[in-house]
């Protein structure tokens, strides 16, 4: 939905911006929530981050016309918000406990024991992901979103596409080593 350039009246222009913003909320709130949740792993914090992202957009709504790809732009905003929140809440304990994962992750057709085992496995993997270097971890997490291409990941992170590919390669190798090491300890 585009803002009509012929809207000379200020009120009409404001209404048009509000309509654009409302459409963006309906279209992208879910995707932004998933991005936020993948970093914060807390439903309430992820929802707060989404709201904060749209409030930022509201404050800068007059620049909406200049944005070329609003989806990537919004993901970049929420990505920066969640990284900032994660940095600030480093002193707090991690909230990605096994019970929370078991509640959130899809588990159709699994028994209770299988759900618990899967949740434990995912918790171990996520712990290994958290041990990756920041740059590699960020690329790996964003690559999990199937709707984001390498170019879009590069746009979100502000790096080149070749950097995305090389970091992803390093991240996968490191993850394999970390998981092997974890398995050998058990």
């Amino acid at each position: 939905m585009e803002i009509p350039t012929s809207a000379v009246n200020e009120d009409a222009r404001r209404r048009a911006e509000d309509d654009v913003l409302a459409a963006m909320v309906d279209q992208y709130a879910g995707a932004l929530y998933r991005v936020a949740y993948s970093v914060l792993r807390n439903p309430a914090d992820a929802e707060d981050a989404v709201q904060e992202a749209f409030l930022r957009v509201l404050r800068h709504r007059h620049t909406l016309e200049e944005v070329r790809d609003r989806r990537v732009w919004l993901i970049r905003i929420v990505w920066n918000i969640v990284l900032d929140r994660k940095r600030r809440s480093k002193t707090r304990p991690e909230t990605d406990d096994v019970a929370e994962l078991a509640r959130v992750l899809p588990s159709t057709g699994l028994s209770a024991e299988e759900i618990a085992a899967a949740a434990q496995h995912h918790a171990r993997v996520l712990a290994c992901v958290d041990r990756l270097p920041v740059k590699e971890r960020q690329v790996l997490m964003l690559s999990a979103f199937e709707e984001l291409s390498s170019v879009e990941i590069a746009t979100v992170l502000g790096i080149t596409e070749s950097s995305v590919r090389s970091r992803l390669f390093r991240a996968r190798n490191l993850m394999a080593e970390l998981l092997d090491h974890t398995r050998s300890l058990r």
Partner: protein
Amino acid sequence: MNSNPHNPKTPDSGLSPAEETLRLVASVPAPEGLEDRVHAALRIAPRTARVFAWPKVFRPENNWIRATAAAAIVFVIAGGGWGVYTRVERNQPAKVIVMPPRAPEAGGFSGAGAIRVPQTLPGPTAPQPAKANPARPKAVTKAAGRAKTKTSSVIGRPSALGEGSSQPDASK
């Protein structure tokens, strides 16, 4: 694990456990009513970070108040400039005494290049000390002082008079 860095998102590539888990996390559905809550938050949010709100008459949307303000600014600047312009005195003659040119007299005396040297200020003069009567001799002054001392001691002690005293002894 797909180790090809140039094709990280091949659909049929086998995913590592990490990527499987991350994809599961990334596919978590948004909670019910998320959009409605965001809409509500946007409705109650202040539109701009405004500390002081102008009254409706003075809102910047009103063009007439903008024009009035611009006219007032122009009036103040122009009036101030005119006031300064009218107060400044123009063509004020310079306060310089022009000496008439001295035409050298033909056949007369010349100054021979003499330069007048101005008189310097008179130097400070110390006052002369007043002399104490230089005609009076110094010895006379000394003797007079001694006699005065002796007379005063005799008057103060009458019983201690020795021989040669001019006073008669009452006990004899």
